[in-house]
């Protein structure tokens, strides 16, 4: 199968968003719905005003049609993100963030900015967080070695962005430093 070159080495961001959309979020439904079977599982019943957990793709879909309110997950608010940002800037390691936070945050902020408190501030905090982590991954690059590189707590989008470059660079380094095992047999 002929994939275009960029897709051969990594996944596209839209695909990651799709995968992240499987995660369950809480909503406040505005309509009633019986327990319905979908391919990934059965969700519902939706009985306003009781909260319900459904997958993100469904929540976004309902929200766009104005049939629910999305309740942001516990980490998507100003206090939590602020605390993580200050931790990110004070320590050299990456701070713990939910693995797919970038995709989930973007989906919710795009579809339901009115459901998130202080959406603008949250957006700017997320951007700062992303830039701080990018700076750290650049420093990590300087320590690139042909055998291993461990960057704990990196999240899905960040890994995807760095993957093709890092793998190729490590491959080159492996070939350049393969000397130790190889050793030429001929020549004085």
């Amino acid at each position, binding site marked *: 199968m002929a994939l275009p070159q960029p897709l051969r080495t990594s996944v596209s961001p839209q695909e990651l968003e799709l995968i992240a959309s499987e995660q369950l979020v809480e909503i406040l439904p505005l309509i009633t719905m019986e327990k319905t079977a979908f391919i990934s599982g059965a969700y519902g019943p939706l009985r306003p005003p009781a909260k319900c957990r459904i997958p993100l793709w469904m929540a976004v*879909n309902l929200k766009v*049609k104005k049939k629910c309110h999305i309740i942001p997950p516990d980490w998507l608010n100003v206090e939590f993100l602020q605390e993580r940002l200050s931790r990110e800037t004070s320590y050299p390691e990456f701070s713990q963030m939910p693995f797919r936070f970038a995709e989930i945050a*973007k989906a919710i902020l795009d579809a339901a900015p009115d459901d998130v408190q202080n959406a603008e501030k949250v957006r700017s905090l997320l951007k700062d967080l992303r830039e701080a982590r990018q700076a750290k991954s650049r420093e990590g690059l300087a320590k*690139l070695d042909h055998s291993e590189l461990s960057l704990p707590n990196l999240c899905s989008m960040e890994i995807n962005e760095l993957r093709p470059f890092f793998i190729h660079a490590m491959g080159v380094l492996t070939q350049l430093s393969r000397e130790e095992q190889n050793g*030429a047999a001929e020549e004085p």
Partner: protein
Amino acid sequence: MDNDYFSIDAILAENQKIQCTFKVDVPEVGHLGGGNDRDIKAPAKLPIPMWLAYIILLSEWADLTIPAPFGPRVRNALKADPRSVRLSALVGAGGLWYGFGKMIMDILDDEQANIMSDVLTKAFRGRLTEVIDQAQHFATLGTLGVAGSAVDAAQSFREGLDGTERELFALAQESSKRTKRWYENHDKARQGTRR
């Protein structure tokens, strides 16, 4: 850049010539030197392409001198500041300095090869950060640069990239561009049908 028979990178890297000093007389192959001689007399120095040099050295007909792109001048320049050396000037645009170096390294004996490997890896690592910085910066601008004097240093670095580094640059730029585009895309049209 590997020893794969079919690797295009390896074939291109092998096309560089190296100086060999012949130790024995070899009749009837004087045309290798490009001159009019019929024979090669020892000690004659001839530039031989890598793919041929391998066998000649293996059969102990000649000795190898480390070619100019890896000579002491280049090594000192790399030690001083790896990012200021223009690798593409040493092997021609589109050439593979690292690939070439690796082939030489395979032929040399252990001690010299260790030194070569050290030089190559340090140079690669030193330039790598600069490559990714520029790639991410240019993710938004595409391949056209912006005019400005501060950009000239960056531009001359980009022109001095060797083939392997160019591939890495393209990879990093491509993935940065896609991620950035995704972050800035706030199009809600695909999120649900409108009824």
